[in-house]
């Protein structure tokens, strides 16, 4: 018994000593330091955070930067985690998602020497009577922040075209988490893509769940209920749709599960390639609309390393590989050729996706 206490006491003392030493040794090396602050999804969300981290890891391997991440488990962690990286003299801080919009801007203004990149957000973001530093981040563009945005309607357009070219029932569907621009941009492009297919091929494929003219559609109201994903898919199938694009994060996995069980529908994944992130549903995944956050983050880090980093807005497009569509399962050669032509048209600017 006494021995045990002694060992424990020794352990505690040792850890204290190490703690005291740890501080000095932590700051060493001349490598560029990159830190990613995740949102509440965590680093293994198979989506935004994981994808951004993939870009940072690639940069660590190829460019020799020192990459770290900090997971946020609640909203008050955002500012705290950014502060942690600031204290460690991080060169480039990557923040993921619009919920970090205000905290990122506040930190960027207080630390003009540090560079920031924020995924899916951009400044200025104060438009209404919103108060700067409170409800929104900045009234002006920030010279040390790069907003990583994506023209996802371009990829959504391709998805709509692919859906229209693959449907058996003549009806395709989509639904979102909540009706906000980052979500409905997918759906706007999707509807446009279907319309374009109809024009080109003289078909009359219908879109359920979104109407750009009314700027409204079907929304679950949350990003976490797999049950909602299941019931939305079920009702779309009852209305005659056989392809569904859920733009609501993991909610879509509920839809995929329903499609797999019923065999009545196919799913279009969003953000990442779902055959990779959720391989168990590969047989029901038609294709995925890719928001290549990893490419954007990697490019931002590369600019930091090259010394060419500049604030402003990065726009991921089909042309620069920031957005894209993964391979369409079971696509005919005709559809493939059509998709290639459409993609080229969008890149050339001859086809409007909004």
């Amino acid at each position, binding site marked *: 018994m006494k021995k045990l206490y002694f060992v*424990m006491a020794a352990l505690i003392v040792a850890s204290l000593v190490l703690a005291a030493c740890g501080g000095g040794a932590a700051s060493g090396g001349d490598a560029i330091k990159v830190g990613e602050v995740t949102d509440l999804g965590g680093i293994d969300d198979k989506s935004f955070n994981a994808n951004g981290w993939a870009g940072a890891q690639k940069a660590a391997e190829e460019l020799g930067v020192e990459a770290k991440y900090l997971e946020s*488990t609640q*909203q*008050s962690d955002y500012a705290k985690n950014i502060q942690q990286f600031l204290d460690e003299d991080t060169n480039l801080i990557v923040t993921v998602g619009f919920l970090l919009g205000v905290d990122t801007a506040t930190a960027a203004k207080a630390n003009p020497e540090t560079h920031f990149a924020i995924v899916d957000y951009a400044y200025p973001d104060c438009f209404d009577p*919103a108060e700067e530093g*409170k*409800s929104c981040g900045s009234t002006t563009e920030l010279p040390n922040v790069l907003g990583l945005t994506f023209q996802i309607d371009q990829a959504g357009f391709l998805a709509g075209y692919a859906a229209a070219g693959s449907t058996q029932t003549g009806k395709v569907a989509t639904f979102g988490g909540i009706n906000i621009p980052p979500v409905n941009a997918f759906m706007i492009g999707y509807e446009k893509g279907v319309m374009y297919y109809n024009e080109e091929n003289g078909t009359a494929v219908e879109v359920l769940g979104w109407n750009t003219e009314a700027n409204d559609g079907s929304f679950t109201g949350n990003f976490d209920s797999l049950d909602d994903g299941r019931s939305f898919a079920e009702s779309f199938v009852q209305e005659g749709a056989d392809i569904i694009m859920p733009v609501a994060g993991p909610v879509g996995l509920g839809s995929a599960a329903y499609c797999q069980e019923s065999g009545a529908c196919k799913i279009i994944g969003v953000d990442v390639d779902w055959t990779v992130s959720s391989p168990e549903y590969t047989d029901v995944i038609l294709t995925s609309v890719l928001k290549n956050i990893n490419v954007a983050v990697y490019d931002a880090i590369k600019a930091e390393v090259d010394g060419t980093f500049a604030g402003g807005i990065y726009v991921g497009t089909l042309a620069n590989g920031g957005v894209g569509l993964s391979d369409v399962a079971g696509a005919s050669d005709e559809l493939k050729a059509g998709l290639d032509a459409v993609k080229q048209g969008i890149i050339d600017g001859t086809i409007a996706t909004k």
Partner: protein
Amino acid sequence: MKNTDTPEKKETKKITFPQEWLVPVLAVVTGLIVGAIVILVSGENPFVAYGALFEGSFGNPLDYVEGFKSFFTTGDTQLLLRAIYPFTESLVTATPYIFAGLSVALGFRCGLFNIGAEGQFFVGALTSAYIGYSLTGLPTIIHLPLAILGGALGGAIWGMIPGYLKARFGAHEVVNTIMMNWIAFRLSDWLLNGPMKSSGFRPVTPNVEVTAELPRFFPEPLRFNLGFFLALLFAYLVYWFLFKTTLGFEIRSVGANPDAAKYAGMNIIRNFVLVMFLAGGLAGLAGSAQVLGVDHWVGQGFSAGYGFDAIAIALLGKSHPAGVVLSALLFGFLRSGATDMQSIARIPIDIISIIQGVVIVFIAAPDIIRWLYRIRVKKAEDTVLTRGWGK
């Protein structure tokens, strides 16, 4: 009053007896050791990890020295503020834990299992936020207490509903508090996307007015605020209520043995409703302190599961307010220190959850600890935490 005196004294004496605390303390130590083994197995150095954890929760001793040096020589507070930042952050994290832990502990004392602290937390936070941003032009002296009170009342009503359902219809509070959680989550989804949404597309509430913010003691980025002292004050109030008032004695009697309490002429139904009302109010205050003191706005994922961790805190603290404060501080230090551990030692934050989980297993099964450390049981008596079904 007189007849309640004797059992009261006995109770407090028993609680403050050191033996009572041996199992919780050893459970924490064992939890840390198991955590160290997990870290070791995952190929990292537990000393580095816990070193970073310590530094992240208390600060680096060298920084303190530097900070004080520069403060006394040049009067510059910059370095000193930086040195105390980790410590103050830990207290900030502990604040909602204290409130929520008190909420669950109060329920336990009456034999009620309040799993609904998380939902009550949300309702309290949303109510406080609403009062905080919708009323303008009020002086702090009116606005702040109003916002706090509103949060407490919101949580209290949310907690009272399951209490009433139990008292009136015998519906088990575990089921109903869980259900009330879901209602609160979905209600907040709707509110944040609809009526309470700020301008712009983000599903968050507007910021509360400055007059409704809990005052902070240091400049940015230090977020240490009055909420922590409010939490301590409420811990004392709960202690006083439970152990120094007749009503508190009744509540504890109902918790210890409802049949005996009923036989003694105590109103069980009233006590159930009252306790759930107060417990809900405490959890609501947790949300209130978080929104008015730290965040100033509410968004989705506002809570890091404070209401659920609170169950563990109440268990670890043996449902005694002082114990709750200590275990809430422990959880606060662990959670807050984990930021450094993540960054410096690159240990995932999940290890903290593992440590917490292990601690709770040992608390729930104290025999394991007694066996591990060869502690002889003096009296085969334990606090009754909850009653089974159908009571």
